[in-house]
């Protein structure tokens, strides 16, 4: 007991220093011991380039009216791919928001389905059996409780899988985030709450989202550890996520990771960020480009060069071209699709409605 009435808990005046292993120029920082193997770095780089190329292609198709509105990942590649590489597709579950395409692909979800999803094809919603990913979720933060259930359920059944929930800093203002982190703390659910702080929720800046100096500072309020990391540093993101996954597998429960990054493109193809993003700020972040950074590092290690960059780009573009070819050639859904899959069996009402609609 104390007679001192000054609040025992006070907000930090300054954000803490995020974890960073590679500096903005792709130079390894003193004391940094990256645990990522060269092979993993090359795999990650490919996924990052793939993700950006997938959005570039989607964007042009959208402009031609061949594809619906979608949310690009450009700027967040290291955050999305670095965290995904720390998971094991055979045992872990990925629970995305909507920007995490390469993470899902690496986890076994087919690029074709993502292309179909962006084209608004119902088959884009299908998750193939055995693939441990949840569908993109447009209802913000609603996916976070699902991740808690997934991790908790695996643990109940003696599996050592971990669930990784992705969500934005905007979504972290929703009650579902709070309820989820709190329950995960109570039941020691093996979950990684991966908060991508890309500074924006559509046009709403981080400052309007919360008065907390760090969003990772919320973790102790749930009895779990919180990590602040440079989200544009592939090696750092991988490492803190791998450690969080390891703790979760070992039965030590959940971790909240705040990855500091930036949404370099529009929120979606329906958005015009020039109305609200300060170009100088964007410039500063452009210098921190996650793809160039890892390329530079691999370059200094003799593992990368401009030729390989070109070769990779060409290879990835061709693959993606093929995916969207296949997607456009995919059989168009018919009216009957709206009458399927509401229930395993059909109710009398649905049968009546179908017969009237399609029978006539």
């Amino acid at each position, binding site marked *: 007991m104390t007679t001192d009435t000054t609040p025992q808990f006070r907000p930090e005046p300054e954000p803490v220093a995020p974890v960073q292993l590679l500096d903005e120029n792709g130079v390894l920082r003193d004391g940094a011991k990256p645990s990522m193997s060269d092979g993993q770095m090359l795999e990650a780089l490919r996924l990052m380039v793939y993700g950006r190329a997938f959005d570039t292609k989607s964007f042009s198709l959208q402009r031609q009216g061949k594809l619906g509105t979608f949310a690009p990942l450009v700027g967040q590649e290291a955050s999305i791919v670095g965290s995904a590489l720390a998971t094991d597709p055979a045992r872990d579950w990925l629970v995305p928001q909507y920007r995490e395409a390469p993470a899902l692909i690496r986890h076994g979800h087919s690029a074709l389905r993502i292309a179909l999803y962006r084209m608004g094809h119902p088959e884009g919603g299908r998750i*193939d059996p055995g693939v441990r990913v949840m569908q993109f979720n447009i209802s913000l933060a609603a996916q976070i409780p699902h991740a808690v*259930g997934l991790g908790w359920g695996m643990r109940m059944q003696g599996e050592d899988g971990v*669930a990784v929930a992705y969500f934005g800093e905007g979504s972290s203002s929703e009650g*579902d985030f709070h309820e989820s982190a709190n329950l995960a703390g109570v039941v020691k659910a093996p979950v990684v709450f991966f908060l991508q702080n890309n500074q924006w929720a559509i046009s709403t800046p981080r400052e309007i989202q919360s008065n907390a100096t760090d969003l990772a500072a919320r973790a102790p309020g749930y009895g779990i550890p919180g990590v602040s990391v440079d989200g544009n540093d592939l090696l750092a993101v991988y490492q803190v996520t791998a450690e969080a996954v390891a703790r979760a597998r070992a039965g030590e429960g959940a971790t909240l990771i705040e990855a500091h990054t930036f949404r370099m493109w529009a929120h979606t193809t329906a958005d015009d960020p020039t109305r609200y993003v300060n170009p100088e700020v964007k410039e500063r972040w452009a210098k921190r480009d996650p793809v160039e950074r890892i390329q530079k590092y691999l370059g200094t290690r003799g593992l990368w060069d401009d030729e390989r960059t070109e070769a990779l780009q060409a290879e990835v573009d061709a693959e993606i071209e093929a995916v969207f070819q296949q997607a456009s050639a995919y059989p168009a859904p018919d009216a009957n699709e709206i009458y399927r899959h509401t229930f395993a069996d059909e109710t009398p009402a649905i049968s009546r409605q179908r017969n009237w609609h399609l029978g006539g």
Partner: protein
Amino acid sequence: MAVMTMIDAIRQAMLEEMERDERVILMGEDVGHLGGVFRATDGLQQRFTSKRVVDTPLAESVIMGSAYGLAMTGLVPIVEIQFLGFTQNCFHQICQQVARSRFRTRGEHPAQITIRSPFGGNVRTPEFHSDSMEALFAQSTGLKIVMPSTAYDAKGLLLESIRDPDPVIFFEPLRGYRLQSDEVPDGDYTVPFGKLRTIREGDDVTLVTWSASVPVVEAAAEQLAERGISAHVVDLRTLVPLDEEGLIAAVERTGRCVVVHEGPATAGFGAEVIALLQEQAFYSLEAPVRRVTAPDAPYPMPSIEHFYIPDTSLVMRAVDEVLKD
């Protein structure tokens, strides 16, 4: 075969199914150590440990949302929401996430979850505890809506609900918990969805109702009989799926109908019953179908709830009108 109360039948269904199927788990506020605020889960945690009967923090949205995740790992959650009104605190998880999972994933991620929740009036509960929300869930699509009125149906329908591959919301009428008791077989049996129960046969007028209003309508039918009016009374038992054929046949039999439920009139499920009847049985209706329901007002304070909930005298008045029409 033993006579038991509805709440005992509900507990027995869960106990037996959890013994039969170890994938089945139970979660909610106060369901474990205490055994539920109405003792619906009494003894289950002691029997199955706190791994399978889980006391959760006070947070409906993550209770429902984590149950969905649990279901994705192959478990079969029974979720208790302590009172039906509080499903509004997780409405998006129920109606957008759980209820649409099969549809959104083209059948790949069905959500086998049973949501149990008490509701219903005339038991002097505090605010938000008594509301009849069946029409909200019926309109939302993707949920099966199960509303037993007897102990026998409660057990048989709950077993059917737990085994149904799709999400089910199982309404438990507070008033019936202990007042309603009847013969309940031990062991396994199910009551199928989409089959109404004919409570009493009659030729003058058809009374359609479900769940908490059943005893009120039965009492009205008794008194009508004394006055020489023979009422045909049916309990819909499940609203989704709805026994359309049975309902239409029951009304065609008399050509006159009164629908009774506890929820407000406007856009209540009674409106759906009437819409269906006039679409499908138009030419056999000899008089307008009447509704006896709560008014278009919020659920009131306990001292006036008996005015709000349909009572026997109002049901009889509506019947008289339908017979006069």
